[in-house]
């Protein structure tokens, strides 16, 4: 009996303590309004991240795959109906042993209503910005905006998979259809795997190499890229048409001396997304129309059709699963093989990739666990990503994970990075005004 009484007393005590704490917190909230006056706001984080190879890479020698000491600052200035945004990173990259900076965002964004009544139907975003569209998870068909695969493979935050570009985006809206037109005045290539962090397969030597190649200025276009999207919703299905005119985002082509180059590329495609059953279904298609119309130029990639079908659904509370089937079809395949300098290393006519994702939110969403696997049945290789992020307060976050590449051959897409398989850990501390 005494035990129960003490239990009851303790319980009452803790309830009272909680009431007291609630009252204090309500009082704390009263300061809120005063903090909100300024149109200027800033915030940021400091981060250290370390990654190690899970095996030796004899070509690179170095075991470190990630060694960042980074500060990111973000600030916004709100105008009457528009805003100016900045997001910039300054970091020491221990893998390259260099101090690096990157302006990820510095743009003005707003409505064009000040130009007249018509202007209200248009928004403009101009400046350094990150751009994304399309329906795939980690697979891109009609999204030709810049990416940074080196960061992705090394285990940097997902944000860094997208690289910024200096672009102007004009968006128009009507009841039937909306559009975006993006002009990037100077071609902005992807940051691909170039031997800095990870070695890659060279068909000319038939081995893995880590030459930190750079593309000659003469092979790097300084011409604009154009991207357009028309989209709308019809009977609950989100439909979009896409177009791109520019250059291959990776230097897959070669000039007559064999130096890597970016070749001209036009892409057109469409996508559809809608709820199916308890989940979301998606379909996306893109036609990659390059310089090598007949497929007989060994120095330039053939035309390709790319197709993606995906489905995502919450399996049980807080656990979401998704599946994607992605395929690339190389047009004029016979000509490609007949003219290839190394037919034994060429892609299959059809390359397939199946992706599986499981995402789990636990501990009141302070812990996120993600498994994402790319598996190619045609190449018999794949890439497994495991990642956990824990952030029990607004102040800090710890994340860690594994990037594991696997496969039979050294020359296939994922398998060539086997020696780059790595494990990483990062700690991020947030600060704000």
């Amino acid at each position, binding site marked *: 009996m005494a035990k129960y009484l003490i239990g009851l007393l303790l319980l009452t005590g*803790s309830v009272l303590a*909680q009431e007291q*704490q*609630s009252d204090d*917190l*309500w009082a*704390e*909230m009263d300061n*809120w*309004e005063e903090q*909100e006056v300024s*149109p200027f*706001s800033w*915030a*940021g*984080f400091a981060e250290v991240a370390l990654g190690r190879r899970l095996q030796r890479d004899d070509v690179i020698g170095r075991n470190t795959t990630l060694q960042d000491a980074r500060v990111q600052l*973000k600030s*916004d200035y*709100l*105008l*009457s*109906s528009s*805003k100016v945004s900045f997001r910039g990173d300054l970091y020491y990259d221990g893998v390259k042993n260099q101090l690096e900076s990157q302006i*990820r965002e510095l743009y003005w*964004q*707003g409505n064009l209503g000040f130009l007249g009544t018509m202007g209200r139907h248009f*928004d403009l*975003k101009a400046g350094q*910005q*990150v*751009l*994304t*569209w399309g329906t795939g998870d980690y697979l891109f068909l009609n999204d030709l905006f810049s990416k940074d695969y080196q960061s992705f493979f090394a285990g940097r935050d*997902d*944000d860094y998979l*997208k690289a910024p570009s200096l672009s102007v985006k004009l*968006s128009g*809206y009507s009841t039937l259809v*909306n559009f975006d037109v993006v002009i990037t005045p100077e071609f902005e290539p992807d940051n691909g795997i170039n031997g800095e962090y990870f070695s890659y397969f060279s068909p000319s030597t038939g081995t893995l190499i880590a030459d930190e190649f750079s593309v000659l200025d003469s092979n790097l276009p300084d011409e604009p890229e154009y991207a357009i999207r028309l*989209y709308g919703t019809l009977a609950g299905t989100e439909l979009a048409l896409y177009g791109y005119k520019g250059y291959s985002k990776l230097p897959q082509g070669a000039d007559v001396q064999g130096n890597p180059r970016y070749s001209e590329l036009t892409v057109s495609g469409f996508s559809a*997304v809608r*709820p199916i059953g*308890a*989940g*979301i279904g998606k379909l996306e298609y893109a036609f990659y129309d390059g310089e090598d119309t007949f497929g007989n130029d060994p120095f330039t990639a053939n035309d390709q059709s790319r197709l993606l079908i995906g489905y*995502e659904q919450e399996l*049980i*509370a*807080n656990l*979401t699963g998704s599946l994607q089937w992605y395929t690339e079809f190389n047009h004029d395949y016979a000509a490609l093989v007949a003219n290839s300098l190394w037919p034994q290393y060429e892609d299959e006519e059809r390359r397939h990739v199946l992706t599986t994702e499981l995402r789990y*939110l636990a501990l*009141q*969403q*302070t812990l996120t666990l993600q498994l994402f696997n790319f598996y190619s049945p045609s190449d018999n290789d794949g890439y497994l990503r495991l990642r956990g992020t824990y952030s*029990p*307060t*607004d102040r800090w976050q710890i994340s860690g994970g594994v990037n594991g590449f696997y496969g039979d051959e050294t020359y296939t897409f994922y398998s060539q990075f086997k020696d780059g398989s790595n494990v990483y850990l990062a700690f991020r501390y*947030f*600060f*704000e005004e």
Partner: protein
Amino acid sequence: MAIQGVGFAILSVFTFLSASGVAQEVDVDGLILASEKAAYYAGDDSRSDARMIIVDGQGRKQMRQFTILRKDVEDNGDQKMMVFFSRPADVRDTVFRVEKHVELDQDDDRWLYLPALDLVKRISAGDKRTSFVGSHFFYEDVSGRAVSEDTFSLQKETETRYILKAEAKDTHSVEFAYYVVEIDKQNNLPVLINFYDKNHTNYRRVEAVSVDTIEGYPTVTRSKVTDLTSGGYTLMEFRNMTYNLGLNEGVFSERSLRTPPVQWLK
């Protein structure tokens, strides 16, 4: 105010047992519709700033601050909602878009905008009784649980409140066995909801802490959710609320995910 925190709920086991005080003439269906309307459909549209303080069982605090825009398609019916996050720093400019559908066989449509990637992601409907952005509020507490999902019965009437018990029509879709909701007779707002499991244990509580009349609409301005198992709780406070702004359809679209309608967010 769309997100008036307080949903619908429960009775203590004691009141549940003493159903004798029930006045038979109360129109329960009318009452819950009036209550739903008062809690989630005040005006034709609204805006509000909101701040949440999340306190976990160990006393660790987190904060979320956001602006909510809401527009009704019809009273007690479908609604459109946008939630623009401003704090903490790592979720700033994240936007959540919901098209709420009250038909039982139609899931809500949901989208999320992640600014650092410029990514608009359609989210599968999912379990609405999971945490809203890490708080003790559920998505459903924020968007409003359609009263058509539950069967209500009047348990008791006091001088100031109607006390109703609610059971889900689809018991598999919810974690509770039943809930008991207390509705304030004066303003029809649900002011206390207690959730019970099948052992009649009260494990969760949603309560209206302050109610103010704003532009003629009684509005919950402070609410609290308590996880009675862990001791964790979340406080939510609404500020700068306005009703009937004449928000147009375009505000509730992909356009506002990518280009926030700055004039409504200040």
